[in-house]
């Protein structure tokens, strides 16, 4: 019985971490290419609205997920045109994207507020899903969870074990030198931005299609900003993004369980735990990095204009 409760809690931790993994892993690729996109929250919320709208229209969770990814991709394309194509300020453009995403999500989702929908189906493998203690945790999740895990592995492999991944990292560290070598800096960055947008949109779609599942204005509730913090916390490394997301997801869920258990701590303090945990982790990380210098891509946030 206790094992089942532990499994249930761990499953909810995993569920809470999934949108952060999806959005965080996308933003990691974007930042590794040297672009800082602060519009993750906007792309996420728009993905949540677009995904839910598509799913309701088509009665398909798969198409809804693709719709969410497409929504995020669409907004990121706009960001890419502005920052990569027209060399606009990345910080200002990213913040504008968040505001735009919040507004557009309200527009797209207006007629879907309060509409009920069945959650994304969970995996059911006879004999495996029913395994005591670990069955539901490992073999009873929805497709988004497995996709998030797959994306982490794929991005890790791509960045550290492929030539194109090396190219992307090199561009993020020195766009002038890589341009001089004949590498397509703007093309790589634009594609990275699109990938990041699709991932953020997918993270949003997970919230509206699987996690809750419903559409509600502002439902991302700052998760996009947490995803941004996770990339820094992870030192721009994919496996650490997953670990950080699990830490934050765990803090989110466990503070609710702690409230329900009546630990004698004020609810307001417990609600702040996930954010305090993130700040503490970032502080400890920066203290640890004092000796070795910053691990951030050297050209992160710098505008690139190729010499004519």
């Amino acid at each position, binding site marked *: 019985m206790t094992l089942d*409760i532990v499994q*249930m*809690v761990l499953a*909810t931790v995993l569920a*809470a971490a999934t949108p952060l993994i999806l959005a965080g892993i996308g933003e990691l690729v974007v930042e590794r290419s040297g672009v800082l996109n602060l519009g993750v929250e906007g792309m996420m919320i728009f993905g949540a609205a677009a995904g839910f709208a598509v799913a309701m229209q088509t009665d398909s969770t798969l198409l809804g997920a693709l719709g969410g990814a497409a929504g995020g991709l669409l907004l990121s394309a706009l960001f890419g045109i502005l920052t990569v194509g027209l060399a606009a300020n990345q910080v200002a453009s990213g913040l504008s994207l968040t505001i735009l995403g919040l*507004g557009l999500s*309200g*527009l797209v989702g*207006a007629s879907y*507020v*309060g509409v*009920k929908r069945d*959650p994304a189906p969970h995996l059911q493998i006879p004999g495996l899903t029913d395994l005591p203690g670990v069955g539901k945790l490992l073999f009873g999740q929805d497709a988004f969870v497995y996709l998030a895990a797959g994306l982490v592995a794929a991005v890790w492999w791509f960045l550290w074990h492929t030539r194109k991944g090396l190219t992307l990292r090199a561009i993020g560290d020195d766009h002038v030198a890589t341009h001089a070598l004949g590498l397509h800096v703007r093309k790589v960055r634009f594609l990275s931005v699109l990938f990041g947008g699709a991932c953020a949109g997918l993270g949003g779609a997970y*919230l509206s299609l699987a*996690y*809750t599942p*419903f559409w*509600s*204005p502002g*439902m*991302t*509730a700052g998760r996009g900003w947490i995803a941004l913090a996770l990339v820094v916390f992870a030192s721009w490394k994919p496996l650490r993004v997953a670990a950080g997301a699990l830490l934050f997801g765990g803090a*989110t*869920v466990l503070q*609710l*369980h702690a*409230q*329900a*258990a*009546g*630990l*004698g*701590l*004020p*609810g*307001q303090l417990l*609600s702040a735990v996930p954010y305090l945990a993130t700040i503490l982790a970032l502080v400890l990380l920066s203290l640890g990095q004092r000796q070795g210098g910053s691990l951030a891509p050297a050209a992160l946030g710098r505008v690139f204009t190729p010499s004519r």
Partner: protein
Amino acid sequence: MIARPFSRRFLLQGAGALSLSALPFGRARAAGSLTVGFIYVGPKDDYGYNQAHAQAAKALKGMPGIEITEEERVPETNAVEKTMESMINLDGATLLFPTSFGYYSPYLLAEAKKNPKIQFRHCGGLWSDKDPKNAGSYFGYIAQGQYLNGIVAAHASKSKKIGFVAAKPIPQVLNNVNAFLLGAQSVDPSITCQVIFTGEWSLAVKEAEATNALIDGGADVVTCHVDSPKVVVETAARRGAFVCGYHVDQSPLAPQKYLTGAEWNWLPIYKDFIASMQAGKVPQNFVRGGLADGFVKMSPYGPGVSEAARKNADAVKAEMLKGGYEIIKGPLKDNTGKEIVAAGKAYPEKAAELESTNYLVAGVKGSV
């Protein structure tokens, strides 16, 4: 929500808005008609707090000599001041109902001082005689409804654990949490109640997370005090738990799992205020009422309610309808072990002490 590009408060911020309102091409109003303004913090169709008020406002629209102006989704910031000002200056409202808890201080108080000829009545128990005389507050003893919810919940619970998703630890919310558990404990003293505070009146995802956490913790009946119980009701039902509603009847959202619910009936209060205004009198500053006054009502019983539960709840309800029912009575300790009501002492629904409740009773797992 689609933002209206030219909502009242944006118009008002324009340089000429105040001067325009004085010109003859303002909104045409019937001579002698009373314009009443309703302000909601959320959408009018939220299956919750705002809908309960909006239903009453809708019923008022059919009454002669009354014009209703409404604005929804107004945050608990100075935005509500702008909305109040525009209702006064552009719509000619002379009676305003800013319905959300956080509208009162400093926003309503500031507007009441600025507009001494306008009457402001706020939903909640916040007005005191130190406040402007053209302000006031009204509320219902809905803790009575939550007590009845608790009775029905106790009969339905197998785990002897019930759950409560709460927004903020303010007196009105704490009274509801306490009443829910005390109602349940009147059936079975061993029952406990887990409470989770989300920190916001409306935070849909966190409400879903909180509901899941309560059910993961063993609760098999859940209720709430948030603006829109829709999320809690649907999430709990999907997880197989029973639900007791709040604010309005949510049975259509979970027909099989909905037990009953504590509902508001604001119409009598609003009619009373309006009748006073139409008679040229100042409406009461402090209005309260419960089941006996028709300010609170119960949702019909759902299919999950046993005959024994119905009889038990109906018997207590009959006592409540006589007035003066005591939910909080001694000896009673809070959940830290401190005595809060001595033996032989009790607080009926009208007791002023209940307006400043800052504790959770013994058996509630949670902290203020």
